[in-house]
């Protein structure tokens, strides 16, 4: 029904042309994080006709997302859809010639290489530094280019990690990983849509340039603050003693993955991931929980509210526990109510 006519305007652009469009159509991109940055970047790349998009996110759509996460609707909130599933659905309606794969999972050392190694480029659209450090190591091991992006309040930044001998990796730029909770988040400092839109749009533009092999690819760190009228490119040197891109040490990637818990982006929510992924019988659990509170089961998750407890459980045993201050409290809810 639809033809290549849809790309006519960008084919006319001399930076792309017919050959460039063919390259984009053959390209495979992995987008990690489908929030504000991820939805905007995915929207751009899907409309541009990038042939394959893998969208990965551990979360589901909430009302507070609608202010800036452009692929989501009120209906997605009502249906408690996982973000990657909701986004993939909307993108497929927008451009059916793009293969969009939705992955509902938490990216960790055990699974990240499987997610990225059949792709040409990775876009960081995450909300935490641990995943960024992991992306940095996995992409360096597999020599896959990736693009860092981050935003909070009215400021944001992006930088290409090009896996070249003379350009820095993310660890060169940020030698130590900030501890979770040791930095402002979108929950604590807020965030406005224009900054996420700008950062993600730069990520998408750089993605197109990288996929096309354009010589104009940026080799600097771009910092933007839309409230302070700031936009500046910054030189970043390679660290000659970088453990990742110089010495090839992958401290996070090679760490054994056991059961783990993670605080979610400044919220009073914790994610619990069991050591062994297992198929949770959501209907059976719902039947047990019904006498304790409100239970809703969808194709993708179980949501429970009651007895002073609130959580979402995914079919692979991963859970998000709301309203808890620490890992101990989250694990207690997991044990007491889910018990996998």
């Amino acid at each position, binding site marked *: 029904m639809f033809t290549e006519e849809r790309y006519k305007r960008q084919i006319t652009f001399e930076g792309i042309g017919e050959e460039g469009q063919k390259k984009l159509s053959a390209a495979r991109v992995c987008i990690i994080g489908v929030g504000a940055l991820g939805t905007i970047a995915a929207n751009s790349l899907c409309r541009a006709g990038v042939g394959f998009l893998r969208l990965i996110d551990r979360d589901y759509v909430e009302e507070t997302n609608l202010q800036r996460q452009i692929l989501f609707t009120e209906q997605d909130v009502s249906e408690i859809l996982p973000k990657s599933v909701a986004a993939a659905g909307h993108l497929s309606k927008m451009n059916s010639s793009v293969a969009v794969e939705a992955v509902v999972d938490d990216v960790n050392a055990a699974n990240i290489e499987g997610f990225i190694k059949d792709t040409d480029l990775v876009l960081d659209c995450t909300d935490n*530094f641990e995943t960024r450090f992991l992306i940095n190591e996995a992409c360096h091991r597999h020599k896959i280019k990736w693009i860092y992006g981050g935003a909070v309040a009215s400021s944001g930044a992006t930088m290409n990690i090009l896996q070249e001998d003379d350009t820095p990796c993310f660890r060169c730029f940020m030698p130590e990983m900030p501890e979770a909770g040791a930095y402002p988040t979108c929950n604590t400092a807020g965030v406005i849509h224009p900054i996420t839109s700008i950062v993600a749009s730069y990520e998408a533009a750089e993605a197109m340039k990288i996929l096309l092999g354009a010589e104009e690819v940026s080799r600097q760190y771009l910092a933007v603050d839309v409230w302070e009228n700031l936009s500046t490119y910054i030189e970043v040197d390679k660290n000659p003693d970088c453990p990742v891109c110089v010495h090839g040490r992958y401290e996070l990637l090679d760490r054994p993955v056991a059961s783990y818990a993670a605080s979610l982006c400044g919220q009073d929510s914790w994610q619990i991931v069991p050591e062994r992924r297992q198929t949770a019988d959501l209907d059976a659990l719902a039947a047990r929980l019904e006498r304790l509170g409100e239970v809703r089961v969808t194709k993708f998750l179980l949501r429970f509210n009651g007895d002073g407890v609130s959580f979402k459980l995914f079919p692979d045993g991963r859970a998000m526990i709301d309203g808890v201050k620490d890992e101990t409290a989250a694990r207690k809810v997991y044990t007491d109510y889910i018990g996998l």
Partner: protein
Amino acid sequence: MEIKFKFIGMMKALVEGKSELTLDLTEHCTVADALLTLGIDYKTTKQFNFAVVNGKKEDPQYVLQPTDDVKIFPRSFGG
């Protein structure tokens, strides 16, 4: 020597909302030393990301020169 510091985004909250300050510093003063005169210890200040001097990211131990242009950037975290 007088050196102008520009504080970007959330870094302004650490200097009473001012976006620019001119500091009168001694010779051989580092970026870290200069920030300490404002009560900012970069190692423990969660908003601090890095310092840019004359358009280039520099270590906080960079020794300032009289004509330097310094910008202090916050972390860009969320997604």
